[in-house]
């Protein structure tokens, strides 16, 4: 999943220290494994280099943890684009998708559109796979079926999430 974009998204609601960022990330997205500090700082450095964030203020004392980061206009645009674009449908997307949904809710964007866009992308691939099945041999069919089942699983998750959006919004913004 894209750590950079996620951290950017978290910054959109307001400037934070590196330490705060990590804590926020862990709280919302770090269920399996918490984010390493090093990764946070290296990501932030990259984002800084690309102009997507800027340093807002520095606490006295040294070290990267003392910096306070704020998102730039370019950064907001980047988050926007990232949320609006569907992910390439492939397995184990759920963490990314979940992050996107939460962030969309947090930043006041339409999560429904996001889900629907993703759904359309999934279906397009499914269509392609189905077409390939009709012309392929048995091995092709088996492989395509495998992929189709997984895509279907994702699609079902997207549907279910769409149905649960109100609940989720309440939980997330609390």
């Amino acid at each position, binding site marked *: 999943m894209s750590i950079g974009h996620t951290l950017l998204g978290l910054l959109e609601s307001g400037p934070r220290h590196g330490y705060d960022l990590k804590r926020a990330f862990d709280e919302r997205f770090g269920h399996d494994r918490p984010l390493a500090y090093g990764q946070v700082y290296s990501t932030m450095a990259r984002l800084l280099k690309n102009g997507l964030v800027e340093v807002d203020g520095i606490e006295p004392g040294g070290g990267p943890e003392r910096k306070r980061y704020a998102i730039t206009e370019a950064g907001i645009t980047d988050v926007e684009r990232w949320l609006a674009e*569907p992910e390439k449908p492939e397995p184990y997307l759920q963490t990314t998708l979940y992050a996107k949904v939460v962030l969309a809710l947090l930043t006041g964007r339409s999560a429904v*559109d996001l889900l*629907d*866009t993703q*759904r*359309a*992308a*999934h*279906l397009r691939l*499914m*269509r392609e*796979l*189905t077409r390939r099945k*009709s012309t392929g041999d048995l091995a092709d069919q088996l492989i395509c079926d495998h992929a*189709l*089942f997984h*895509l*279907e699983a994702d*699609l*079902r998750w997207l*549907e279910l999430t*769409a*149905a649960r959006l109100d609940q989720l919004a309440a939980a997330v913004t609390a």
Partner: protein
Amino acid sequence: MSGGDRTTGNRTGGAGKGRNPAEALLVATALRKAYGPTPALDGADLTLRAGEVVAVMGPSGSGKSTLLHCLAGLVRPDSGEVRYRDRELSAMSDAERSALRRTDFGFVFQFGQLVPELTCLENVAMPLRLSGTRRRAAEAAAAGWLERLEVGAIADRRPGEVSGGQGQRVAVARALVGGPRVVFADEPTGALDSLNGELVMRLLTEAAHDTGAAVVLVTHEPRVAAYSDREIVVRDGKSRDMERVS
């Protein structure tokens, strides 16, 4: 693509009756329909072009079947209009809509659609006979379609004596035998196992493509919807064309 023009009509694949394939065949606008207090449809739209397969998806109770009924002229919407080849369906009399369904539309449902006392062959021949074709010609055409859908061997059995998958293919044959322009399929594979479902979908879409018929496919299964060209999602009575989304 399987070629060959084995229909009783004179359409060729995709081109319709000499019409521009991109022109809209069936246009539904702002449909509203309520059975009781909650509306089944609350401002749904759909546009169907000749020869394309459109999947209508959505959770149970979302109104997708109602949308299909309105499109086919089976149910009159409370408001909104459905135009088929530029004719307003609500303005037509019951006899005219009935005639339209005989000649231009075909239907496949999930279950309970074949007349149990007629043989499969007679079931498939029925739409033609209702339109006035003589029995022999109708049954010959029906036999051809049964062969095409790989169920020629059960022509003389009754629907109660064949398997679910075979029965659904008979239903598909019946839907297509009259050379319809639009086939309405409501959860056609709902009662079938995966393999039979795939078979039915493949045969249905291939045959529809060959004869140039458009298909409105109502389903809640993504893998079935994957046989379509385009998808419409119906939620809480409102529709959303997925093609416009991305």
